[in-house]
């Protein structure tokens, strides 16, 4: 039934039928570890047709009968060329193994394959492998997924120590961060200095900023898809590192050779361990650390592949008898890949994901305050791929997610008794179905068209609130009436179609023009009014009062690869325009913590973001790296704020220049340097003051919001890696790094305060998160 329907869909696209009725299908894998390779290009040089492996490394390609020259290529691997003969109507199922590329590779090979970025239909998409991430020195010499992402065009951050990242003028909650398909609600360790992804366990990271395909949904601005390693299924291997702030280790290996493997990777910071001798008396129970654990097992048969992966991590700051803070994510993902035949591939995923934080104060005696908040979700999704023919590939599927929000269980205890400030749970069900078609008209022109339909149900049991109109725009709304809805009663139901479109026109072998449109809908909102997001920000579902956020994004780009002498370069220019609706804004002085009437503190605004991104990358030779420049604007407009005129968002940065470079001196020494320049973020300045009842009150003068800029941000990081000669199975290196090499005090913000204790004067204070040079040493090892 489905097949017939899909064929019908394919009929809308011409060029359906050729004399290609033999098929080759299978997985592309790394021959050293057995890891599947996504995004590899499988080509028949004979038929001049090609296909790209999906997220699970699977491909299926229709061939004409006869002898074929097959070429398989992928970034960081040597090309594989082979010949095979296939009979009419024959179906060959075969896995191919690629050899990881070693540094000094023949340039002929190199040049032949560096056009994947030009050929693929994906626009505004950047992939970074775990291997590349490890080469980029980050804070304290530790490789970091999010810090690497922040060096890509279109990606910014409000500053050091800020959680998350901003993509093309979107707020941090508008990024769908996935780890083995399970959403991560806070990707920060140590308030954002590190991210929760252990680079030893990461296989591949893909950031999609525009032209987002229909199989993704739920956030407005981007998808960060982090895929963890499956684990080497050929031999045992161990990786690890001892750093200034934390250590990490991982072990992977076969459970049954070529059939089943595992990986387990962990990290723990040890400030508290080092501090222990200094802590005595009543502070001896203090703990300050973070940890994370990533583990995965997989098992494969001829037609099936099963994966089970999990992540657990926490940040814990606990000062004995004073205060404690704890936050962390945990996820469990189970996946089942199935190959029905040479045309049909499916993946079924179940995941559970939870974000939890806890805050407590205690005087160790009779006084305490304890606050816990959760967001829990369980999801089931199924994705099907139908490889109709070399010109048509169809994907469809659906997903259903049940959310439980616990905005705050808060209890205060003192000598007089207990006060309960807890807010009741909220419940929601999110459903989505999608259909997407990749149509490759000829070698030059291809289209990806898709439709996603999402439904969000805000469910009981809950109290439901309706609010009065505000006295004036931008003012707090007060409750009008309250009623109860019983278990699973529908309070709000939002159904939204989300069309998606992408196209590519290949100008020649080395250049192409690509475009994309996507409409995205978001029903989970991070309620945060602070300069940088805090771990204690609360996620809220869309309700009868909070409308689904929507975004339309248009993007177009020119991609060109070229060579200067023996040096190969990839380059691109992209431009985008994003139109945002139902953006969450806040009344002046909004009270967002444990507030039953939170919805009355929110204002609905609109937003727009536009920009130009230039990218030049060199991935071969002794000197590698990239230069990325982004010219961008991100603006918001909300009733009652800035006199209802456009104002720059907190993360608006006009110029962003990132230079990432690595230089391989010889077998032993590698050098790396990163330079970052970003225009200052906007802020609001006071201009006047007055006194009422003895209190000095600052006066902004007008309703202006974000009318002045903080100074520009710039920084240079350097690192030197010394690799020791491999001894037997043991490989190791030392990384010496310097963060903020020329010792700049980059301002995070300028704020105003009154010095009540001393002068009683108003002051402007510049706050820098890192105000000096930060050197670090770390030691990394590998055993295999």
């Amino acid at each position, binding site marked *: 039934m489905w097949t017939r329907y899909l064929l019908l869909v394919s009929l809308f696209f011409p060029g359906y039928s050729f004399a290609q009725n033999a098929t080759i299908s299978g997985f592309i894998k790394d021959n050293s570890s057995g890891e599947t390779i996504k995004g590899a290009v499988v080509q028949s040089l004979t038929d001049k047709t090609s296909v790209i492996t999906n997220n699970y490394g699977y491909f299926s390609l229709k061939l004409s009968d006869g002898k074929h020259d097959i070429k398989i290529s992928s970034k960081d691997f040597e090309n594989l060329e082979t010949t095979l003969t296939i009979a009419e109507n024959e179906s060959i199922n075969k896995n191919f193994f690629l050899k990881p590329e070693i540094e000094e590779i023949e340039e002929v090979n190199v040049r032949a394959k560096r056009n994947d970025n030009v050929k693929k239909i994906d626009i505004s998409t950047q992939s970074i492998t775990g291997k590349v991430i490890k080469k980029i020195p980050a804070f304290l010499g530790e490789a970091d997924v999010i810090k690497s992402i922040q060096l890509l065009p279109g990606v910014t951050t409000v*500053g050091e120590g800020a959680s998350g990242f901003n993509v093309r003028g979107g707020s941090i909650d508008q990024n769908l961060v996935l780890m083995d398909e399970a959403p991560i609600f806070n990707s920060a360790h140590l308030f954002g200095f590190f991210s929760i992804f252990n680079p030893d366990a990461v296989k591949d990271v893909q950031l999609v900023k525009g032209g987002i395909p229909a199989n993704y949904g739920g956030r407005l601005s981007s998808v960060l898809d982090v895929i963890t390693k499956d684990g080497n299924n050929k031999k045992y291997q161990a990786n690890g590192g001892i750093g200034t702030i934390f250590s990490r280790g991982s072990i992977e290996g076969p459970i049954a050779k070529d059939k089943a493997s595992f990986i387990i990777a962990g990290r723990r910071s040890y400030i508290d361990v080092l501090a222990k001798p200094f802590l005595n008396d*009543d502070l001896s129970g203090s703990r300050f650390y973070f940890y994370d654990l990533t583990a995965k097992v997989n098992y494969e048969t001829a037609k099936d592949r099963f994966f089970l992966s999990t992540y657990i991590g926490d940040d814990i700051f606990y000062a004995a008898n004073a205060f404690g803070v704890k936050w962390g994510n945990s996820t469990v993902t189970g996946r089942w890949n199935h190959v029905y035949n040479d045309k049909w591939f499916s993946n079924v995923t179940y995941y559970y994901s939870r974000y939890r934080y806890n805050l407590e104060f205690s005087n160790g005696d009779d006084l305490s305050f304890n606050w816990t908040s959760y967001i829990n979700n369980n999801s089931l999704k199924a994705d099907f791929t139908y490889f109709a023919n070399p010109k048509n590939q169809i994907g469809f599927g659906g997903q259903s997610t049940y959310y439980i929000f616990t905005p705050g269980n808060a209890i205060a205890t003192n000598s*007089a008794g207990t006060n309960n400030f807890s807010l009741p749970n909220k419940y929601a069900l999110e459903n989505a179905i999608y259909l997407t078609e990749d149509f490759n008209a000829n070698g030059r022109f291809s289209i990806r068209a898709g439709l996603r339909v999402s439904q969000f149900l805000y469910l009981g049991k809950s109290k439901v609130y309706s609010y009065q109109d505000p006295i004036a725009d931008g003012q707090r709304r007060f409750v009008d009436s309250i009623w109860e809805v019983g278990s699973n009663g529908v309070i709000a139901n939002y159904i939204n179609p989300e069309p998606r479109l992408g196209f590519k026109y290949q100008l020649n072998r080395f250049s192409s023009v690509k475009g994309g449109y996507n409409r995205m809908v978001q029903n989970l909102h991070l309620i945060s009014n602070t300069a940088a997001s805090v771990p204690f920000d609360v996620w809220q579902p869309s309700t009868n009062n909070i409308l689904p956020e929507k975004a339309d994004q248009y993007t177009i780009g020119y991609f060109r690869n070229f060579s200067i002498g023996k040096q190969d370069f990839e380059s691109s220019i992209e431009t985008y325009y994003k139109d945002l609706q139902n953006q969450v804004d806040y009344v002046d002085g909004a009270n967002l913590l444990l507030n039953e009437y939170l919805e009355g503190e929110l204002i609905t605004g609109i937003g727009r973001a536009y920009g130009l991104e230039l990218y030049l990358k060199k991935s071969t030779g002794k000197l590698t790296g990239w230069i990325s420049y982004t010219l961008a604007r991100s603006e918001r407009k909300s009733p009652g704020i800035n006199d209802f005129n456009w104002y720059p968002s*907190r993360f608006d940065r006009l110029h962003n220049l990132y230079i990432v470079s690595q230089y391989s001196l010889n077998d032993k020494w590698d050098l790396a340097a990163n330079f970052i320049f970003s225009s200052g973020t906007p802020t609001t300045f006071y201009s006047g003051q007055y006194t009422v009842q003895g209190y000095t009150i600052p006066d902004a003068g007008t309703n202006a919001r974000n009318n002045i800029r903080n100074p520009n941000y710039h920084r240079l990081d350097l690192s030197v890696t010394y690799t020791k000669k491999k001894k037997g199975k043991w490989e190791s290196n030392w990384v010496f790094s310097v963060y903020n090499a020329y010792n700049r005090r980059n301002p995070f913000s300028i704020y105003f305060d009154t010095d009540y204790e001393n002068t009683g004067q*108003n002051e402007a204070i*510049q706050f820098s*998160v890192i105000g000096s040079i930060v050197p670090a040493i770390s030691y990394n090892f590998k055993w295999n």
Partner: protein
Amino acid sequence: MKMKSILSISLILGWVFLSSCEDIIDVQIEQKQKKIVVDAFIDNAIKTQRIRLTESIPYFDSSKTEPPVSDAQVVLADTGSFKLFNFTYKENGYYEWEPNPASGDTLQVGRNYALLIIQGGDTIVGVSRLNPTIDKIDSIRTVPVEGNGPPFIDSGKYIELFAKDRQGMGDFYWIKLFRNDTQNSRLNNLNISQDMGNNSNGQDGDYFIYPVRFNRNNEFLRPYRQDEKVRIEVYSINRETFYWFQIIQNQANNGGLFATPPVNIQSNMFMLGDHSGRGVAGFYNIGAVVGDEIIIQE
């Protein structure tokens, strides 16, 4: 020993957050608007009631002397009976009115009062309702506290306020603290309450909860000494006044990573027409007050 541990912890945390630092910098800012400032917090007690009018000054003006506005007409009007009470100018921006029970010139709980100010061709108006306050303060008690010393808390005598919120939701109070007859005007001590606590959260009609009862009635690192006089007044405010106080409280110490955007603090006084284009700042609240005081004993 304790001190040493705390130092170690701060060192360690400092090491984690490295050299996070704050520098006082020079910023040149033009004052955009010279606003007329209304400071009108009056009550129904039978004593001189004062309203002050000034002009706002540039943010970095260190003189802290707002120019007084002396040529205004200031009238309070009972919106039910249309009875008018004239405030007359004394000095330094203050306008005064004496209630007179004999002639019925008093303010009544439950009534709405309009404040009318005419000055420099502008008419400025606002309305406030005289809400009832609590019946009485049950007691102000001293409690000995053993502290760790700076930067946490100093050992010594601190006070707790025992008073019951009025029955029924939606009562708002400003609890004023006077130490040796000087009113505390530190924002850290600004003590406002919605029913029994910071947020209403359905808690009603019983003793004020902890922060209202204890924390804000005590000054940071300044325990009370013997023979000091402590007076507390519970003054009823309007809901708008409560939110206005909350906003100015949030603006204090609002820096660093987790700062919220500075806001334009709105007044509840409005300019009719606004001929001068200068705008109005400040706040007007009319309330009822009860107070009590103690002398700190050994």
